[in-house]
């Protein structure tokens, strides 16, 4: 036997043995996924009415601190009040939980309930990763309990695939003492883009290259996308019909405004502080070096834990582009989902319903300071006696801000569009393109992308 024939035989052998194995693997995968077509109701019948004990696995990324304590206590109460259902809480690392969930769903051994990202519910509905919950909603419609834009994100082709759990929104945090010293009233000083610019100039101390205090820089922690959306009456990069709406005149103007800010403070200064804001380690706002910062309202937790006792801060909505335009803001959040093909969707839904009920939502918010998806819970927290004035203020602000907060779910017709837009926006900030050119180019490449997906 010479070498060549040896190699050839080996190769044929590999192909021959591999082909059936691969087919078997694909076949199995296929049937496992197709099995997901069963309606949850029929699955539930076989499991629940016999009255036998059911145990559920519940995944979230609350690994330590007050959120973990809160969820464990809530799960314990649920288990005590439900004879036939036992929920086991399993912590999974933040961010990686969703990779693991995807693998588990693909492998057919997913947990019963998962805390998922609010922006990708439709993607998972389309991919048959999440159980259709519409039959439960038809029985008892709870959709009105939640902020409407949150509910919108869980609906795919008119049917619900998840229940919103918590949310957030972008606001302005300001240093009360700094504003008072300058004799400014936060109500008027932060009302419009012009106002906040003027306020920032008043609060600025020092000069280029040697700033002692920086009044405000809009792009620290809030992206150009949020300011564009704020200017454009709450329309994100995609309008309501799903059309690409990147190079609208308002958005171009927003980008130009941001470029003016960059010129004013200079890239060196901006980069210096941006590093700190980006990681959330050292904090120039708490240290009094920056008087106002745009930020997710969750930042309150950091202030509560890390700021000195005497640090006075206030919260205001994002300023209006022009008077009467609206304080449009942007938010995110998390939802509860039941993966496809789990054994006990009915019991799982009961647990989800418990977690999203006003009382439990209120309890979770009270311990974590998260903004809850259930409106009634947030309203109760606005006046909750166990919260101090600051805490109540946060919930009041959030509740008010959520009226003009937009959630931007991943568009199914261009799920990876965001880096294309960022490329162009970065080019504008690097002064390689004008605002108009950058957004025109972004419009074109995202439109191309949408075509690629068709």
């Amino acid at each position, binding site marked *: 036997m010479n070498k060549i024939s040896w190699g050839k035989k080996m190769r044929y052998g590999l192909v021959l043995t591999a082909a059936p*194995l691969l087919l078997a693997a694909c076949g199995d995968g296929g049937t496992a996924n197709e099995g997901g077509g069963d309606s949850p109701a029929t699955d539930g019948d076989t499991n629940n009415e016999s009255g036998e004990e059911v145990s559920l696995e519940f995944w979230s990324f609350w690994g330590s601190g007050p959120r973990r304590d809160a969820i464990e206590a809530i799960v314990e109460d649920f288990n005590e009040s439900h004879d036939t259902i036992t929920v086991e809480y399993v912590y999974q690392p933040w961010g990686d939980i*969703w990779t693991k969930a995807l693998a588990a769903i693909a492998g057919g051994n997913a947990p019963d309930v998962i805390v998922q990202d609010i922006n990708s519910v439709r*993607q998972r509905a389309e991919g048959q990763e999440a159980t259709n919950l519409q039959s439960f909603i038809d029985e008892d419609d709870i959709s009105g309990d939640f902020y409407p834009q949150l509910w919108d994100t869980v609906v795919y082709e008119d049917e619900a695939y998840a229940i919103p759990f918590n949310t957030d929104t972008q606001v302005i945090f300001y240093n009360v003492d700094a504003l008072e010293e300058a004799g400014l009233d936060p109500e008027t000083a932060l009302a419009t883009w012009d106002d906040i610019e003027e306020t920032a100039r008043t609060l600025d101390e020092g000069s280029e290259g040697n700033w002692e205090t920086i009044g405000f820089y809009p792009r620290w922690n809030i992206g150009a996308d949020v300011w564009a959306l704020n200017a454009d009456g709450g329309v994100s990069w995609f309008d309501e019909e799903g059309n690409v709406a990147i190079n609208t005149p308002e958005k171009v103007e927003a980008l130009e405004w941001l470029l003016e800010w960059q010129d004013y403070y200079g890239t060196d200064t901006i980069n210096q502080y941006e590093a700190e804001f980006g990681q959330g*380690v050292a904090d120039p706002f708490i240290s009094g070096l920056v008087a106002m910062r745009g930020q997710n309202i969750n930042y309150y937790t950091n202030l509560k834990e890390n700021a000195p006792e005497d640090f006075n801060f206030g919260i205001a909505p994002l300023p209006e582009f022009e008077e009467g335009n609206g304080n449009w803001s942007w938010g995110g959040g998390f939802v509860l989902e039941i993966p496809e093909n789990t054994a006990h969707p009915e019991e799982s839904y009961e647990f989800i319903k418990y977690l999203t009920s006003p009382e439990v939502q209120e309890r979770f918010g009270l311990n974590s300071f998260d903004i809850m998806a259930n409106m009634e819970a947030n309203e109760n927290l606005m006046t909750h006696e166990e919260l101090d004035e600051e805490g109540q203020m946060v919930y009041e602000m959030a509740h008010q801000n959520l009226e003009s907060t937009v959630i931007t779910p991943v568009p199914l017709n261009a799920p990876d569009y965001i880096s294309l837009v960022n490329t162009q926006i970065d080019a504008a900030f690097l002064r390689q393109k004008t605002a108009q050119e950058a957004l025109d180019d972004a419009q074109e490449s995202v439109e191309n992308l949408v075509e690629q997906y068709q």
Partner: protein
Amino acid sequence: MDNTQQSQWRKAMSEFKTLKKRRWSKRQKKEALWGLLFVSPFIIGFLGFMFLPMLFSFVGSFTNYNVTNRMDFIGLNNFRRMFTQDELFTTSLYNTAYYVLFNVPLTTAGGVFLAVLLNRQIRGIRVFRTIFYLPSILSGVAVYVLWMQLLSPSSGLVNTILSWVGISGPAWLFDPQWTKPALILMRMWSVGGAMLLYLATLQNVPRQLYESAEVDGAGSFKKFLNITLPMITPIIFYDVVTSTIGAFQIFQEAYVMTEGGTGGPANSLLFYNLHMWNQAFVARNMGYAMAMSMILFIIVLVLTFINLKLAPRWVHY
């Protein structure tokens, strides 16, 4: 063993050579069986754990696979999209090539330098060796977060130290010109892993060689060039091949340091694997990601092949 023994060997060898002409095929068969026995764990492991997943991703690269409910054959569409429509594909390839080009020679040279520095019997050498190896022990998110702080333009340690010698440091992770050098710098810090390999290899260099060279009056540099370097070429070869493969797959640092894989300023940290990850797990174009992995595989394969072909010219076994 002494000279006589050695000559006995040689004699036996030549006798053996005449013998083996006759019994070649029987001996070869026996050797072949031994060979297969020794490499059989790899074959079993490969067939058991790797073959099917690899074949699956090969097949998947011609489909629109989305991990859960979609896997239709779409021919070469993924590849067509990659080369004609995907604007970020070329960006990611460029970023990765840049990183590989600088990272591989620098870490190899750094590893050899540290190993040679540490390969001596002086007081406290074990402590120094441990210190040099320390950075490569650390891994995971904590290290990358740590480096984000160290590279902070205003308050970071790196720029603070640079300012002591009168250099005003760049904005590192915030300046598209400096993001990749920042990552290369970070990788240089943990060059201890490569150093460990060279240090182990240097133990195999007989001391007598240096001593006889010293008698001949050779200086340190000459000794390094004529003795040390040739002796460690097999491991330099290993290091170059594997670190090239590894550098092409750079992912985690870029993922952590660009806030969830967005690619950093002006996409300057959008490496090949990061783009692939975003396609696979953010956009759910797993089929496309599998096609991308095929292209990367071919690129790395060609480079490794070139490396293997060039090896006999400079690697001394």
